């Protein structure tokens, strides 16, 4: 229990230091947000000789879009969170992942291309741990350099628990989003992403 709080505390601190709300793009109902270094179960210690990362909590970091807030782990079994991150896995709060009603689908295109969510879009829930709406579909993995890089042109469209629509793009998996990450040097499992939320409940992003 103590470690939970510790990790949560570290996570929150990191989050508060790195989160910045940008100005809304148009109107008051559309807000665009950038999140830097959201910790998704990073290593807490490193082997002094080999440098091997260790000390993973194996816990997800839960996130709510409406107020850009990390939801405490004690609320994991509630509808208070929309998506969750752990290592390279992303959950949406529904069915196998949680009691919520969150859903998501992938839009292949540029972030700015997505102005309106088309009516025929099919949102998906997390059906089982192996059939996730987002899961691990968002990155490429290099088996030699061990680098995880977010696929370009992949925008995740999420319907939140409070029935708002969000478009989100993952930008980096490494702390401080370095231009050419090094898997041995740069701490991994720190998400940098941006999203736009339409707070009036419509499917328009401008």
């Amino acid at each position, binding site marked *: 229990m103590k470690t939970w709080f510790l990790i949560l505390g570290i996570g929150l601190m990191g989050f508060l230091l790195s989160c910045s709300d940008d100005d809304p793009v148009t109107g008051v109902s559309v807000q665009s947000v950038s999140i830097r270094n959201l910790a998704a179960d990073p290593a807490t210690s490193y082997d002094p000789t080999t440098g091997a990362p260790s000390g993973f909590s194996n816990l997800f970091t839960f996130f709510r879009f409406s107020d850009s807030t990390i939801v405490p782990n004690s609320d994991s079994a509630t509808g208070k969170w929309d998506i969750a991150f752990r290592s390279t896995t992303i959950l949406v709060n529904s069915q196998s992942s949680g009691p919520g009603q969150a859903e998501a689908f992938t839009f292949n*295109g540029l972030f700015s291309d997505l102005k309106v969510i088309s009516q025929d879009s099919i949102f998906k829930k997390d059906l089982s741990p192996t059939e996730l709406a987002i899961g691990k579909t968002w990155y490429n993995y290099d*088996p030699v*350099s*061990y*680098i995880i890089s977010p696929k*370009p*042109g992949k925008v995740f469209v999420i319907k939140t628990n409070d029935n708002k629509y969000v478009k989100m793009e993952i930008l980096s998996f490494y702390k401080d989003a370095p231009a050419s990450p090094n898997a041995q040097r740069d701490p991994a499992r720190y998400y940098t992403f941006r999203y736009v939320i339409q707070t009036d409940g419509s499917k328009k992003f401008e």
Partner: protein
Amino acid sequence: MRLIITFCLFLWIESLGAQSDSVHLNEVIITATKTERSIGTVPMPVSVIKAKIINQSGSSRLQDILNEQNGLNVVAQINGFGNGIQMQGLNPDYTMILLDGEPVIGRLTGNLELNRVTLANVKKIEIIKGPSSSLYGSEALGGVINIITKSPLQNQLEIGLKYATNNTQDVSLNSNWNHANLNISLFGNHYRTSGFDFHPDIYGQTVSPYYNSTLQFQIKQDWNGKHLLMLNAKAFREVQENNYQVVNSLDSIRVFGTTQINDYSISPQYKLKIGERAFINFTNYGSIYQAYTYLNQNASGLAYYTDSFEQRLFKPEIQASCFFNTNQKYTIGAGLAFEGVKTNRYDDNKFRKQHTDYLYIQHEFSWKHKIEWVNGIRFDMNPVYGNQWSPKTAIQWTLKPAFKLKASFGTGFKAPDFRYLYLNFRNAAAGYFVYGTSELKSELELLEQKGEIQQYLYDVNSIGKLFPEKSIAVNFGAQYDFHNKAQFEFNLFRNDLKNLIETQAVAVTKDLKTIYSYSNIKKAYTQGIEGSIRFKITKAIQAELNSQILYAKDKEVIQLIEDGLVFGRDPVTKVSYRISKSDYFGLYNRSRHTESIKLFYENSKSNWNASFRIIYKSKFGISNTAGSVQGNIRPSSDINSNAILDRYDHFVSGYLLCNVSVSKLLFSKLKIQAGADNLFNYTDPDRIPNLFGRNLYITINYKLIKN
């Protein structure tokens, strides 16, 4: 401006007048049609590298001379091991390499290590571009390279010694004995090198020391041209002593051990001549290739890694050729190919076997020395991958004796390699598993039962039977012979490839290990033009200018770009942008331009010989994944995370190699040669690991002929 230069060149060649002798080769080619044919009547794109050029170039291993040929590229494999030959922009897997007409086996990861083949007893190398599956079946999808060894009809003894940079020694002995109609040749070669090291600061060498030995024996008995009995046997062994460190994600482990390669082949042949018009040829080729690697840890002495691979091929074939009349010739052939592979990379280390039955028919037609037309078709029957038809047609039209047009059309195929079916490879340290398509389902079921699968990335049910990779190709070219003083030649080519087998990520385990298998998904094309000009500058200097322009692209990527679905991500701003068709460069490891200029000087009076060759390769991308050379991470070419090569990515710079040699013949028996390959010492250690820098050498060759 260019026109004026060309025009001046024409005038100048005209002005050379009678001083030059014929540059036109009236060489007999056997690879293009499996029958003897004068090079001037071969309607397919064909070229010959003669022993004289090999000697003048000072080349001792196959890769040295092939890398200088127009349209051929020796490429380092992505994992850094071995060199393969790329023809018309096709991967090394798709070019068949023959030694005295029989296929060389031992393609560990698709390519054949060209360093295995010595040039010391090579009479000539015939290169046929374009699919040749109509005669040779699988593997000859892109073309055929046939290395033909010497068996001169005189008593002779030849000794060659070469000493080169990196303490490289190459010793060969070639002897021929003739009595009446009996001809016996014995050849031996020993090659030894201390290897080289790009990173002295890192434990172990880039290439560890190794040696290899080749022994070849040929015996031929000819009964007045009516019966011919021949036996060709070859043995090869290579041993490499490894000392290096293996770097994985967390650790570096120092290891030592040996890699050994054994390669044996035997080919008895019987040829029966029936009258003046027909003959029957029976060959019975057998070959074994073995490769073993044992590595132990320096610290503990415990076994670290073992790898074993054995391939066997047994291929009896009968071929009959018959002149219907002076203009028409029929060739019919039939054979069986039994192939087996055993390796610890497959689950149970037992022989996996396949047999292919095949039949081919070829019709050669010639009309008034104006038209040469060759049609052929081959049918391969294989229970694993099904039946294959491989047709080919090639025509040559001689408009004037000096001016020829050539066109050919054909299909080629490559059978799925055994590893695509049976591989069962776990690299837990690097975090991936690879399973062949026959192994995948049971392995996934096991992992599923253990609850280790995190997510499927691909519809597993759609992975199953693999089909042969296929190509359809067109070649069109022209040849102009300028009063036997200069030759102009060009060839346009287009290869459309489908069913290309690609690694397919199938699933991810809970501890982030990716499971890969294979599927026939990729479609690609390669197209381009190659041209050459050969002429005599003076009576003693022969010049050659070669050029190839190549476009090789993935058709699916093009389709996705057209649909607006290919993106890149700026590494700094992290913002995605859309890739346009003109941004897309094409497949990895291919230069858009390759050029060469070669000068050969030969003075038959003073017995001096020299050569000067420049080879240029323009920029290329390596791979969409990183590489590891001596544990040094060579970054991926892919800067914008889209796994394709586009103009935003990292390219290996274009480079120029300059090779020179000079030799003198003394007492008409002793030849002394000195030379330098890569004179300007160009290196790019992590990106071109097969190019080690300047290679200085000296050779001595002694030839004793007794008629």
